[in-house]
């Protein structure tokens, strides 16, 4: 089969049409935007779906990913305001909001965002003390986000999030911090212990004081009562004596003899019945007993009169007060 000129033109036409279709039909997948350049100049952005561009005149410029992207910020050394050198790394998320700006306003977008984030981590963290740095990550993240997001505005992207992943102070500093924490806890423990023992001692002393006071009060009270008892006893004795003396004054003097004799014989019997006594005490004046007996006789005579004359009536006589046994009630020890 010999091809004529027309045949070749037809074949070329079909090939050409296919090439034109190939160049003109652009399918943009979801999550991407294609920028269109007409003779090298940006004209529009293709949305996801089937798009037809003018072949030869228009060309795809950049295929921009408009999904949110993660950027790993590598570890870097940061000097804090108080001159501690710490290693910090972070992760940043950004999303292209305007494909054309992101494609043409900045060259090498990812590298630009990365470097911007790194320098801002340095400046933000460098303006804080180490203690602040370790305790205020949220504040750092917030400040970083604001600064970096403002800076990337001309690039048509938005930094949605920057998180400091790890802050590592040098090991000797970590050791020192651990020791400081330990020392602080020990200090607290010791203070607590000292306070405890102080309180215990105070309580103990207070208890002793209280008990001493109570004891003294008890003794004082007892002494008061004792004195009262003695007064009361004396009063009673005085009254008794008075009554006796009144009785005597009103009656016979022989009544005294009765009392004396009674006491005397009582005492003698007590001496006599004492089981363990080896010696029998006799009154200094045995005759006094006789005297008292004669006193009894006088009493009897007084009472019974002369109706029955005793076989040998004792001669009545006055008992000398000298010889009376001590019956002074004040000499008796008060009962306790």
């Amino acid at each position, binding site marked *: 089969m010999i091809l004529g000129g027309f*045949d070749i033109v037809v074949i070329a036409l079909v090939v050409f049409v296919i090439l034109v279709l190939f160049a003109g039909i652009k399918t943009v997948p979801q999550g991407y935007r294609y920028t269109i350049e007409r003779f090298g100049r940006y004209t529009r952005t293709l949305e996801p779906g089937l798009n037809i561009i003018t072949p030869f005149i228009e060309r795809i410029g950049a295929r921009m990913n408009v999904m949110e992207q993660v950027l790993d910020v590598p570890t870097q050394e940061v000097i804090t305001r108080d001159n501690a050198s710490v290693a910090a790394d972070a992760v940043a998320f950004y999303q292209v909001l305007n494909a054309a700006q992101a494609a043409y306003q900045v060259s090498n977008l990812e590298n630009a965002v990365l470097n911007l984030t790194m320098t801002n981590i340095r400046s933000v963290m460098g303006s804080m003390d180490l203690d602040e740095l370790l305790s205020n990550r949220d504040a750092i993240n917030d400040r970083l986000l604001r600064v970096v997001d403002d800076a990337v505005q001309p690039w048509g992207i*938005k930094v949605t*999030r920057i998180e400091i992943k790890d802050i590592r102070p040098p090991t000797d500093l970590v050791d020192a911090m651990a020791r400081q924490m330990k020392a602080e806890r020990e200090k607290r423990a010791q203070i607590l212990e000292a306070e405890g023992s102080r309180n215990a001692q105070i309580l103990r002393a207070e208890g002793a004081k209280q008990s001493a006071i109570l004891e003294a009060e008890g003794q004082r009270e007892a002494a008061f009562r004792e004195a009262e008892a003695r007064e009361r006893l004396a009063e009673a004795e005085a009254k008794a004596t008075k009554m006796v003396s009144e009785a005597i004054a009103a009656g016979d003097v022989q009544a005294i003899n009765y009392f004396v004799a009674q006491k005397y014989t009582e005492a003698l019997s007590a001496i006599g019945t004492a089981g363990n006594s080896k010696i029998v005490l006799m009154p200094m004046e045995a005759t006094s007993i006789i005297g008292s007996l004669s006193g009894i006789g006088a009493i009897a005579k007084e009472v019974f009169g002369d109706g029955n004359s005793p076989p040998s009536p004792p001669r009545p006589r006055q008992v000398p007060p000298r010889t009376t046994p001590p019956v002074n009630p004040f000499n008796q020890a008060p009962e306790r």
Partner: protein
Amino acid sequence: MLTRVVAELGPWTWWIVGLALLAAEMMVPGFFLVWIGLAALAVGVLSLLLWNATFWIWETQLIVFAILAVAATFLGRRLTLRHDATDEPFLNQRGASLVGRTATLLEPIAEGRGRIRIDDTIWRVTGPNLPIGTQVKVVASNGRDLTVEPL
């Protein structure tokens, strides 16, 4: 040899080419081969009808095929545009998807500019001057900046 195969298969050549193109489109989706494949199938249909006509020589068939391929592409675009409905109209359009949301002002709007926090990130907003903490509603978005008005 190729011409002998084409001569023996007759009109079915176009069918085979068309189906092969559709299959290739399935393997490598690009929304490009499918239109050419459909054009080839159309030529196949015409070939079945006109195979014995004197003007239906292979050059004619190729020209018709080229015309149909372009026509199918434009027709297809119109069809896909018409059936472009999606249940996620704001996919990958972060700013636009925030329209209608409410938030409190993180910074006062002064000289028309302020900041709000939505979805754990900070957005710059434009709107009337308002004090910090005001409840605002996003009414429009122009990509990076949102326009708000007080509730």
